[in-house]
C-alpha cells in the first residue's frame, strides 16, 4: 500500500466523521425537524437578500481585483508589493469591530468622506443598507481575490511570455490566448468561494444593514441555535444553506478547469514590460485600492491609541497572544498537512473516484456552519470527554477544519502542476518515498505551502466562535480578550487590542514569507 493511502483513510474518516457525528448529535436532540419556516414569507425574503448581496459582493470583489492583480504580477517596479500582499491577507480576516468602526469613521454619518460623497450622490449618501454591506464585503474579499489572481498571473512561465512576444501577440489577443487560460481555472472557484463567504456573513450585515429587513440566513441559524436553542430548526436552516450555497459552489467550481499545465517558474523570469500609460494607470489604481484598504484602519489608529494605550492590560495581552499563537499554529499545521494529503490524492488523474472524495472531504466544511459542527461535537462527546480538560484539542481540530477548505483550494493548483509535470521525472529517480517528499515535493511546493500557512494562520488567529464553546478562561485567546474588553465599556482598548492582533498576524506572515535566501542565512544550514 502506498504511504499516502495509509494516511488517507484515517483523515477521511476524521473529516467525514466529525461532520456526521455533529449532525447526528443534533438530529437526535429532542424535537423532529421543524418545517414551519417554509411558510414564513420572511424566510424567503431573507433568502433572496442573502443571495443577492452575496452575488453582488462576489462580483464586485473579483472584477475590481482583476486589474490590480495584473498590475501586481506584471509591474516589477511596484513599490511595497510584498507588504501590500501581506496586508491583503489581514484585511480578509479583519475583526468586525475594527472593520465596522473603520468604515464608519470614513463613510458614516459624521465620516470624513461623507461630505464629498453627499455632493457626489444627489440622492444623499447613507452607509447603512446594501451600500455598507457591499463596501464591507469588498473590503474583506477583494484582497483575497487580489492575492489569488496575482499569484495565478505570476505563475505564467517566462517561456510563454517570450513565445507570445515572438509571435507578436499584444493587448487583447495576448490576454485571450495567454493570460485568460491561466485565470480561467481559478476564477469560478474564487467567485464561488467569495460568494459562500458573503452568504454566511453575519455581524457585518447586521451592523451595516440598517435593520432586520436585510439579514442573512446565518442570523437565523445563530438565533435558532444560540437564542432559542432549537437544534432542529438550526439543522433545517443549515440544510438549506448546505443545499443552496453548496450546490451553487459545486456548480461554479465545475466550470473551472485547471488548464495550465506548464510548471510555474517560481522565480520571476522574463516578463513583458508594460507600456507607460498602462503602468501608470495601474499604479494609480494600486494607490486607490491601497487607500481603500488601509485608511479605515489607519484613520482609526490615532484616536484608538490615545484612548486605549494607558489602560491596556499588557500582561493579559501578552498571555492571550501566546495562547492565540499556539492554537493558531497547531491548527494551521494540521490543516496544512491534511490539505496537502488531500490535494495530493485529488490531483491524481488516474483515480477519479478518490479524487472526488478527497475534494468533498476538504471542501464540505465550507458549507457546514461552524456553529452546527461545534455544538454537535460538543454534545456527542459530552458524556465521554471532560471538555474542561480536553477542550483545547477540539479548539485546534475544529479550527483546522475551518481552515482546511481554504488551504485545500489554494494548494490544489500547485500540487496539480507538480504532479502533471514533475511526477514522472521524479519517479524515474527511484527515490525512497520519504526522500522523495523531503527532497523533491516539499521544496517544489514551498511557495504555495508558505502562502497557505499564512492564510491558515491568519484565519485561525481570528477564531472566536469555536473557542467560545470549547475554550477555557485560563487559555484566553486574543479575540476572546477583545470581546471581554468590548463588553466592559473598554471600547478604545478593545480596538487597540484588535490592532495588536492585526500587527501580530502581520509579523507572523512576514516571518513566514521571508525570501528563502534570507531565511537560509538565518536558520538554514
Amino acid at each position, binding site marked *: 500500500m502506498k504511504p499516502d493511502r495509509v494516511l488517507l483513510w484515517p483523515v477521511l474518516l476524521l473529516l467525514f466523521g466529525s461532520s456526521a457525528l455533529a449532525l447526528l448529535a443534533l438530529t437526535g436532540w429532542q424535537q423532529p425537524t421543524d418545517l414551519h419556516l417554509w411558510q414564513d414569507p*420572511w424566510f424567503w425574503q431573507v433568502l433572496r437578500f442573502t443571495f443577492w448581496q452575496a452575488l453582488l459582493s462576489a462580483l464586485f470583489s473579483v472584477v475590481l481585483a482583476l486589474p490590480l492583480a495584473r498590475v501586481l504580477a506584471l509591474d516589477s517596479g511596484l513599490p511595497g508589493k510584498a507588504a501590500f500582499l501581506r496586508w491583503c491577507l489581514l484585511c480578509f480576516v479583519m475583526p468586525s*469591530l475594527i472593520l465596522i468602526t473603520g468604515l464608519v469613521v470614513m463613510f458614516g*454619518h459624521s465620516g470624513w468622506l461623507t461630505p464629498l460623497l453627499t455632493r457626489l450622490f444627489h440622492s444623499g449618501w447613507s452607509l447603512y443598507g446594501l451600500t455598507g454591506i457591499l463596501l464591507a464585503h469588498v473590503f474583506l474579499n477583494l484582497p483575497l481575490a487580489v492575492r489569488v489572481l496575482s499569484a495565478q498571473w505570476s505563475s505564467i512561465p517566462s517561456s510563454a511570455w517570450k513565445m507570445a512576444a515572438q509571435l507578436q501577440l499584444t493587448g487583447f489577443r495576448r490576454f485571450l490566448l495567454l493570460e485568460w487560460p491561466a485565470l480561467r481555472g481559478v476564477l469560478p472557484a474564487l467567485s464561488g468561494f467569495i460568494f459562500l463567504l458573503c452568504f454566511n456573513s453575519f455581524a457585518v450585515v447586521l*451592523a451595516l444593514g440598517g435593520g432586520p429587513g436585510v439579514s442573512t440566513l446565518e442570523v437565523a441559524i445563530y438565533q435558532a441555535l444560540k*437564542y432559542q436553542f432549537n437544534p432542529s430548526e438550526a439543522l433545517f436552516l443549515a440544510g438549506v444553506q448546505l443545499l443552496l450555497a453548496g450546490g451553487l459552489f459545486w456548480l461554479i467550481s465545475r466550470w473551472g478547469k485547471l488548464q495550465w499545465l506548464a510548471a510555474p517558474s517560481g522565480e520571476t523570469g522574463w516578463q513583458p514590460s508594460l507600456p507607460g500609460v498602462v503602468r501608470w494607470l495601474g499604479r494609480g489604481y494600486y494607490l486607490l485600492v491601497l487607500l481603500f484598504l488601509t485608511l479605515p484602519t489607519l484613520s482609526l489608529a490615532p484616536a484608538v491609541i490615545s484612548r486605549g494605550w494607558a489602560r491596556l492590560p499588557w500582561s493579559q495581552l501578552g498571555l492571550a497572544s501566546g495562547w492565540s499563537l499556539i492554537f493558531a499554529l497547531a491548527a494551521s499545521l494540521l490543516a496544512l498537512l491534511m490539505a496537502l494529503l488531500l490535494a495530493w490524492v485529488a490531483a491524481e488523474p488516474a483515480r477519479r473516484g478518490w479524487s472526488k472524495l478527497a475534494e468533498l472531504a476538504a471542501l464540505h466544511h465550507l458549507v457546514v456552519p461552524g456553529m452546527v459542527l461545534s455544538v454537535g461535537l460538543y454534545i456527542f462527546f459530552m458524556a465521554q470527554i471532560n471538555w474542561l480538560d480536553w477542550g483545547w484539542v477540539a479548539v485546534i481540530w475544529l479550527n483546522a477544519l475551518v481552515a482546511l477548505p481554504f488551504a485545500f483550494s489554494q494548494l490544489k493548483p500547485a500540487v496539480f502542476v507538480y504532479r502533471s509535470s514533475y511526477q514522472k521525472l521524479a519517479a524515474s529517480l527511484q527515490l525512497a518515498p520519504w526522500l522523495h517528499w523531503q527532497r523533491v515535493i516539499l521544496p517544489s511546493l*514551498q511557495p504555495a505551502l508558505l502562502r497557505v500557512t499564512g492564510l491558515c494562520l491568519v484565519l485561525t488567529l481570528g477564531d472566536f466562535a469555536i473557542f467560545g464553546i470549547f475554550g477555557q478562561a485560563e487559555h484566553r485567546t486574543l479575540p476572546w480578550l477583545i470581546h471581554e474588553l468590548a463588553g466592559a465599556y473598554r471600547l478604545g482598548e478593545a480596538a487597540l487590542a484588535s490592532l495588536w492582533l492585526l500587527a501580530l498576524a502581520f509579523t507572523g506572515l512576514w516571518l*513566514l514569507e521571508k525570501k528563502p535566501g534570507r531565511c537560509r542565512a538565518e536558520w*538554514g544550514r
Partner: protein
Amino acid sequence: MGKVILIMNNQISAVLQRSLLLLALCVFPVSSLLAQSSGASLPTLNVYTYSSFTSEWGPGPQLKEAFESHCNCRVNYISSDDGVSLLNRLRLEGANTRADLVLGLDDALIDEARQLRLVQPHGLALETLALKPVLNWQDQDFLPFDYGYFAFIYDAQRTPEPVVSMAALLASDARVIYQDPRTSTPGQGLLIWIKAVYGDQAAQAWRQMRPRTVTVTKGWSEAYTLFLEGEADYVLSYTTSPAYHLLVEEESRYQAALFSEGHPMQIEVAAISRYSQQADLARNFLQFLLSEEAQQIIPVTNWMLPVREGVELPEAFDQLIQPQAVGFSPQQIRQQRQTWIREWRSAVSQ
C-alpha cells in the same frame, strides 16, 4: 535533474521549520505559566458564568479573592460569552455538568432554566438578606445579585435637550441605534419596553421607530461603539452607563434619558446547580454574593446596581436617573417572546 534537486535540498522546505520555530517561541513563556496554575487539593467551587464577569475588569477576580480568603476553597470560573450561552451550555451538559453555581442568567431566562430542572432551591431566608423592595423578590431557586434598567444614552454636548418619553423619541427626528432582540439582551429589553408601553399598538410604534433607526446591531458593543463615533443621537444601553464614563474616564457628557413611561428592568441572578457536589459551599458563595462587601464590588466592576439596601457607592451612582419599572413576568416573557419578535420583524422590515 541532479543539480536541481541539490539546489532544492539547500532551501529545504522552510514551512515546517519556521512554523515549529514560531510555535516553540511562544510555547516557552506560556508553559511556565501553566506550571504554577496547578493548585493544592482544596475543595473546588466551579462557577459557571459569562466572560465579562470573569474578565480582569469584571467583578470575578475581586470576588474570588475575597471569598477564597475565608472559605478554605478554590473558586474556578468557567465562562461562556454571555448569559444565553451560559444557559445553553447547562442545557447541553444536563446531568454531566460540572457546575456548582450558575451565575449570570437574567430574569428573562429564569423560567426556562427552572423548566429544564437545572437548579436547586437556594435555601436562604429571603427576609434576612436586606434585598431592595423594588425587586419584590420571592423566588426560592434564584437569587438576584445585581440589576439595572435599560435606557437610551445620549451625548449632552450634542443633544442638550434630550427627549423625556418614548413617545417623544418616536415623534422626534433623532437618530437611534439599538440591538437586535434576536441576538442581544438589551435588544430584547427594548422589545419588552415597547410592548409594555404600547401593548396592542406595538407594531405601530415599531413602524414609527423605523425611520429613527440608523441601524440594528448584533450586540451591545457594536452599537455603543457606533454611538461613541457619533453615528447616532441615542443608543440603547443601561441607566448605569454614565457611571462608567464618570468614574473611569471622568467624562460627564454621556447621560441616560429618563422616560416618563418607565423603563424595563434587568435582574441578574445566581443559583445552585441541581447536580452540584458542593451545594454547601455554593450556598456560602451565594450568601457572600449578597454581603455588603461583594455588593460594593459588583456595581463598579459590572456596572449594574446593587440588590442590597444601604450599600455605599461612589458619588457617580447618586447622579444616575431613578426610573419607574415597567415590564412583564418571566413567564409572560418566555411565552410571548417569539410572537413579539415576529411582530417587531415584520413591522420594521416592510
